[in-house]
């Protein structure tokens, strides 16, 4: 990991098209602005981690689980 120190108002440029700017520091919260093309996704790291975990937990359910869900949905109709 590259570690830099920035003051409020200063920026970091990543690659050719992404600029990260420190906008405000209030207590232990740092407000950051990210300028990037629409083709580059920007997400909070913990959201991506949560989605990865949810996908992993959802993946390849047991045959029993699939059978009982299929049956339950059929009964619902």
């Amino acid at each position, binding site marked *: 990991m590259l570690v830099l120190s920035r003051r409020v108002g200063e920026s970091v440029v990543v690659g050719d098209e992404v600029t990260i700017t420190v906008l405000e520091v209030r207590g232990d919260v740092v407000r950051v602005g990210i300028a990037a093309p*629409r083709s580059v996704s920007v997400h909070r790291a913990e959201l991506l981690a*949560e*989605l990865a975990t949810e*996908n992993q937990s*959802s993946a*390849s359910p047991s045959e029993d689980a699939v059978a009982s*869900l299929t049956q*339950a*949905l059929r009964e619902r109709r």
Partner: protein
Amino acid sequence: MMRAVVMDEAPTLQELPVIEMARPMPGFPEDQRFALVHLDDAGVLGALRSLDHEGLQFLVVPAVQFFPSYAPEIEDDLVAELGIVSADDVLVLLIVHAGESLASTTVNLRAPLVVNTITRRAAQVILEDGSLAVAAPLVA
């Protein structure tokens, strides 16, 4: 410019032999190709099966069958990446987390699977709306 995808009718799942992920699914960066198959006769429950890793599959349901007013916004970039020409071509699926019972089974409303049934390109889209649950009950 954001465009909302609105479904006029309730499409059921259609089987698609090869779907290509335009973006990797969180947690599954190496799974690029999937097949979509029916698991029941009604086109309600389907399986998204990896063509890259045998045995890997996700249970999916068409969102509109369980959440009729759910209308995820699809940004222009995604429209272009998936080659979407008409909203009628789009199938919105939800990944199911099967529980011990139907009551404890959940779906990921925060990150639906958007499939262009014509180009066979798809992506699991991360929606902006923080109030959409990652594990929402499938049935009330």
